[in-house]
């Protein structure tokens, strides 16, 4: 504890009568935790904190969003592009309840976020006071941890705990609700001490060597091993360790949507994406491999399809930091509990250098078939109307895979994730687990603050864009550099695709009308352009990428195009289809 005591930030000078306010302690905690950007929206119950913020303008950047949902998605985008914890300020009542979607999203996608919400005076709790809501109980299922502060003395250590919990182990969202009296209360402040240990919380399970050995034995004896990996590799900052592992082992690897960009998409062992709209080979060969090595992923149903037809022939090795994930959906033959940054090098040390040319050839055969049946037409269409795929292809050509791609939810998301090229980790930002439409615009704003030196391209559908379109106001005011690319098919495309394939083409409320997006952007002072012809595509993308600051490009694409391949719901991964005729 001695070392920790030395790390204490010095107490700032007391404000006269023996202390500082709770609000000031909140901001001092932000400084001590290295926070540089806060996304938020003021209101009655959080006014003392905003009052204190007035004097911290030079130390803390505050981005005033247009809706609290925008604040939390921005904080998520910030966290995903930077690896640091995103921070949100919101007021009580509706301010707090507007965070719930983002909390649920951050919970299921393990994104480190700390939300500070104002709360009514402690003596009014439970009286149905103005803008009072039971935010602790509302957010309990969607937070990794939450806590209500009613006494300023608790603020320093509760916030230290909050930051520690949010960004250790399997990260997640944390909410701290602070009653107005605690924000105003003067208390004896003795400095801020970062939290490094909570007795009831163990972020990393202890690594069991015998299981590493057992896993290595299985891998060394394998003939058709297959690695599938998720965001755990990125969250664990284990990209190098992961690459070293697959390269020594010579094992082909495929990513979940959340694991994407952990290794460059051009890596010779990169086999593509798993899951419902993933690549053909990785899905089919999941049911052919003899050893399946799952790393930092949680076997989501969108990845596994029908569980009783999933990898039944394979021995499963599961590496995960969260013990609750082991055996949750797929039974592990060898559970490797631990942080993959620690376990992967141990495993790499025990495995033999190998290559599997025949096995890789199988992936290549499936890739060729997918190329022929799906990719060719999507990326180089012969029809007049633009496809989403060719827009992504043109984007790839101009970004060379160096951009951060933020996607919303739906067809454009699947197409972008199928075809986007990545050279760097933390570059694919999307709402994977929750599928939150409206995520991309605010998340892209946040991502640009998290990685100010990188190009951030938000790819959004016409439906999702309208869900959080108000955040154009945030762009107008704070001028982050975000490239907005709307793929407009005049439909809620993914639902329409399902209605076409599984509901006899009964298009029920999917023909969404859109405003003139370019005109809307113009109203927010954002330049824009809309195109619908192939001859304009290259130039338009160039203009998008090279404009000073934010630019909006709307591309009109085929109305009734479908995303394939597809593992239809309720079927096994090997039953993946390449066209609607096969369904």
């Amino acid at each position: 504890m001695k070392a920790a005591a030395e790390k204490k930030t010095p107490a700032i000078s007391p404000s006269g009568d023996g202390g500082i306010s709770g609000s000031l302690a909140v901001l001092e905690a932000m400084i001590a935790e290295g926070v540089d950007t806060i996304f938020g929206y003021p209101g009655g119950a959080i006014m003392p904190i905003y009052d204190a913020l007035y004097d911290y303008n030079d130390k803390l950047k505050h981005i005033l969003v247009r809706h609290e949902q925008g604040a939390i998605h921005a904080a998520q985008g910030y966290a995903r592009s930077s690896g640091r914890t995103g921070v949100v300020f919101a007021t009580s009542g509706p301010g707090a309840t507007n965070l719930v979607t983002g909390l649920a999203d951050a919970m299921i996608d393990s994104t480190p976020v700390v939300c500070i919400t104002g709360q009514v005076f402690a003596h009014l709790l439970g009286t149905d006071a103005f803008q009072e809501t039971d935010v602790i109980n509302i957010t309990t299922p969607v937070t990794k941890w939450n806590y209500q502060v009613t006494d300023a003395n608790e603020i320093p250590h509760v916030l230290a705990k909050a930051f520690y919990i949010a960004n250790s182990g399997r990260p997640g969202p944390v909410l701290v609700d602070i009653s107005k009296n605690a924000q105003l209360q003067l208390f004896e402040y003795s400095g801020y001490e970062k939290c490094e240990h909570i007795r009831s919380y163990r972020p990393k399970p202890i690594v069991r060597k015998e299981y590493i050995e057992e896993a290595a034995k299985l891998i060394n004896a394998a003939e058709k091993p297959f690695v599938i990996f998720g965001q755990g590799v990125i969250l664990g900052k284990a990209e190098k360790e992961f690459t070293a592992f697959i390269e020594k082992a010579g094992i082909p690897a495929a990513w979940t949507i959340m694991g994407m960009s952990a290794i460059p998409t051009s890596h010779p062992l990169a086999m593509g994406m798993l899951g419902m709209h993933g690549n053909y080979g990785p899905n089919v060969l999941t049911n052919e491999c003899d050893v399946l090595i799952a790393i930092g992923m949680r076997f989501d149903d969108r990845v596994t399809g029908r569980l009783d037809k999933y990898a039944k022939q394979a021995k499963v090795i599961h590496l995960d930091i969260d013990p609750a994930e082991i055996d949750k959906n797929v039974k592990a033959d060898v559970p490797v509990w631990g942080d993959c940054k620690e376990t992967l090098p141990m495993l790499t040390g025990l495995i033999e250098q190998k290559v599997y040319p025949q096995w890789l050839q199988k992936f290549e055969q499936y890739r060729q078939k997918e190329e022929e049946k799906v990719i060719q037409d999507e990326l180089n269409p012969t029809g007049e109307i633009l496809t989403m795929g060719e827009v992504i292809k043109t984007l790839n050509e101009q970004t060379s895979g160096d951009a951060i791609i933020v996607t919303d939810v739906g067809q454009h998301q699947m197409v972008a994730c199928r075809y986007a090229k990545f050279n760097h980790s933390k570059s694919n930002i999307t709402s994977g687990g929750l599928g939150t439409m409206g995520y991309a615009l605010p998340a892209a704003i946040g991502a640009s603050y998290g990685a100010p030196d990188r190009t951030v391209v938000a790819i959004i559908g016409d439906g999702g864009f309208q869900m959080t379109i108000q955040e154009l106001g945030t762009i107008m005011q704070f001028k982050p550099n975000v490239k907005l690319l709307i793929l407009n098919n005049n439909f809620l495309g993914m639902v329409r695709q399902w209605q076409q394939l599984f509901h006899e083409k009964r298009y029920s409320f999917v023909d969404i009308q859109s405003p003139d997006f370019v005109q809307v952007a113009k109203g927010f002072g954002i330049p824009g352009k809309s195109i619908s012809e192939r001859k304009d595509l290259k130039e338009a993308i160039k203009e998008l990428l090279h404009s000073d600051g934010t630019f909006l490009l709307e591309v009109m694409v085929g109305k009734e195009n479908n995303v394939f391949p597809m593992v239809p719901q309720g079927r096994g991964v090997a039953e993946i289809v390449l066209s609607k005729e096969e369904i």
Partner: protein
Amino acid sequence: MNKQEFTITVYTENHVGLLNRIAIIFSRRKINIDSLNTSPTEVDSVHRFTIVINEYEDVVRKLCRQIEKQVDVLKAYYNTENEIVWQELALYKVPTDIIASEVKVERLLRENGAHTVVIRKDYTVFAVAGHREETEALIKVLEPYGLIEFVRTGRVGIIKGSNRFHERLKEFEMKEPGEEAIENEFLNENEKVFSM
């Protein structure tokens, strides 16, 4: 594998809101809690939940992992009925005049191990501690004699094989916990792990 009765013992910090955090792990999965008891432990700051559910072992194991994943939870165990010593307490309110006039009732109460908690002119309250069948049996016995009210507590149980939680807590409080602090259920079941 069939559903059976499991007793889940959870050691936690004593924080407001933790009961809800634990309860929703069950309700989210539409699992009914048969009984729930919260109590202190032999260690001052540590709280204990005893939860009884009727489920498949596989489900219970996953539930325990989800419970243990909560930041303020120290440890969660699950046990079958014969792995624990357990009791429930029941209270029975009966009209005093009947008890006084019917000698048989007095004998029945003795046979069922009931003891008297309070005697008033109008009613008498008896208590029985024991297993579910025992407390239930006495309801049947007393019903013909004008049972006015019956109430039963949640289960409390002690795991037969457990050591003092104290010792475990020392491990938890250390920054680098020893091997003991982590229970890997696979550890002693090597043969099971790889046979599947």
